[in-house]
């Protein structure tokens, strides 16, 4: 046997690295949260901001932090985490490093739902629900159109792209006919933004996302078995087509819930799994936490840029994640110098 010069203890090293990066991401998350809560027209120190969040200190500060800033910050954290987990799951299920809500129809579906609601002039409060419905509609289309080929991975990728393009086209058709004011509102919803979140939305969305994330967590063994290819998965007692569809629905639900909270923010779901892969190795149960933390940090950082650094009023956070995220991801890939995912 030829002994390859690979250092021993790969698993242990990966676990240590995952733990270290998770701790760092968690620390970063606390700091950024404090900064986000403390920054604005009323400026607070990070410590005062965190105290105000739990109702301590000057009543004026408590009001500003709890009622105006916190819902937005918490929305960013929840949606970022959900998008990142969904992206990681979708990339594994599609065996494709480009799979993300943006390429399989969730973005198109959520935008479609939101814009349809705007078009009918229904209450603004129904828009998150419509975005969720639109995302799930995309999932239905995907499952329905790929089912006959037993959810074969190659077919899913193509069907996903077609669903995305079709729904995006429908969205554009509607927006073109909108009056300017409505079009601006539609633009916010289809790009993904964090303006005007309130606690009711955060609680409902957050609870739904937490429950879905828990289900994702419980299904990780199944995902790992599906990673072995359909034949092996079948030999190990899975029904690859049916199980892939179920897991796919779970991933899409997670992404759609995030889209309901913030609109379909681009790029977080695509980029975070790759970043985690570079930091801590291929996706496992252990890297799921790091993935969620990284997504939360990324979306909150992007929102901080939108609010306090970039001097454009009303810029949707999705525009920033895409413009800054793309070159950053490219740079990471080039530095790494090897393909991000091997197919066999």
């Amino acid at each position, binding site marked *: *046997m*030829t002994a*390859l010069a*690979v250092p*021993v*203890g*790969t*698993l242990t090293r990966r676990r240590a690295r995952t733990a270290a990066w998770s701790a760092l991401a968690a620390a970063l998350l606390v700091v950024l949260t404090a900064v986000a809560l403390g920054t604005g027209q009323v400026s607070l120190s990070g410590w005062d901001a965190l105290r105000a969040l739990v109702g301590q200190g000057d009543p004026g500060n408590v009001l500003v932090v709890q009622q105006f800033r916190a819902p937005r910050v918490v929305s960013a954290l929840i949606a970022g985490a959900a998008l990142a987990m969904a992206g990681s799951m979708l990339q594994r299920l599609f*065996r494709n490093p480009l799979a993300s809500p943006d390429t399989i129809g969730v973005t198109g579906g959520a935008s479609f739902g939101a814009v349809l609601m705007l078009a009918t002039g229904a209450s603004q409060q129904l828009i998150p629900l419509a975005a969720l419905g639109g995302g799930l509609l995309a999932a239905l289309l995907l499952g329905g159109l790929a089912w006959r080929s037993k959810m074969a991975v190659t077919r899913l990728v193509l069907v996903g792209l077609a669903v995305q393009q079709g729904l995006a086209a429908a969205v554009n058709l509607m927006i073109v006919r909108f009056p300017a004011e409505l079009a601006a509102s539609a633009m916010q919803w289809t790009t993904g933004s964090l303006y005007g979140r309130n606690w009711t939305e955060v609680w409902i969305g957050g609870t739904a996302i937490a429950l879905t994330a828990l289900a994702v967590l*419980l299904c990780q*063994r199944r995902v*790992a*078995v599906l*990673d*072995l*290819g*359909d*034949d*092996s998965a*079948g*030999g*190990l*007692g*899975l*029904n690859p087509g049916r199980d892939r569809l179920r897991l796919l629905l779970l991933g899409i639900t997670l992404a759609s819930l995030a889209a309901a909270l913030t609109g379909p923010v681009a790029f977080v779901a695509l980029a975070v799994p790759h970043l985690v892969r570079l930091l801590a*190795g*291929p996706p*496992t149960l252990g890297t799921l936490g790091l993935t969620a933390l990284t997504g939360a940090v990324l979306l909150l950082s992007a929102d901080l840029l939108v609010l306090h650094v970039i001097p454009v009023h009303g810029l949707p956070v999705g525009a920033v994640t895409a413009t800054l995220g793309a070159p950053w991801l490219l740079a990471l890939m080039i530095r790494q110098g090897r393909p991000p*995912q*091997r197919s*066999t």
Partner: protein
Amino acid sequence: MTSTTTTVESVTTANRLAAHGLDLRYGDRTIVDGLDLELPGGAVTAIVGPNACGKSTLLRGLVRLLDPAAGTVTLDGSDVHRMPARALAKRMGLLPQQPVTPEAITVEALVRLGRYPHQRMLSPWSKTDQAAVEEALARTGTAELRDQQVDRLSGGQRQRAWIALALAQDTELLLLDEPTTFLDLRHQLDVLDLVADLHAEAGRTVVMVLHDLGQAARYADHLVVLKDGRLAAAGPPTEVLTAELVEAVFQVPCRVVPDPETGTPLVVPRSRTRSRATGR
């Protein structure tokens, strides 16, 4: 070299896989056509035949990766396609022809996945699980590779890691789809010896698709010869593997001589040049 000439007495009745009027199709194409077949339990069966004769398809049908268009597959009398997937996966393990190695997975992590059918959703990793993994690693000689990445191993090592996964599944039946393809001669023999040991020492019933007739005759107790999706012959290699059969199935004129090492039949194709030379 392990002797594989198992006596008829040691062939038990349990773990009998059988096909009854089995039709297997891909779309409109019929690959396996009305096959009746009984595979002995407790034995090593090799399925052989020319390319595209349906041997891999048959194996896929037996482990129900493919639903039959007609007919049934039974395991000890009960319909395989009506058994719960997990229950079947506890009895039958599979090494597919082209398994997908997840990116950067380590040997041990791969082998651990073989325990999936034995685990419940929230059940923690048990001592039984770890013991099965350790035994699988030990038997396949991959214990010292456990921390290495599977996608960086040589072909032979990788194949043994995959066999270890199937072993950790702890099934009485083991089905292998062309386990020696893409391996050089030495690693082919390594894999086949490993299979022979699994049968001899661990009492596994083995069904494998093979290309090489000499290897099939050497390592199998029972030979299934397919041609165009139908059964051409089945039985012990010494009885089945005749010059007439090989010529009829493979269209290769040949002589069949006893293998000088084991006495099992060895197919020696007739030489075109030599017959020309003698004819002159």
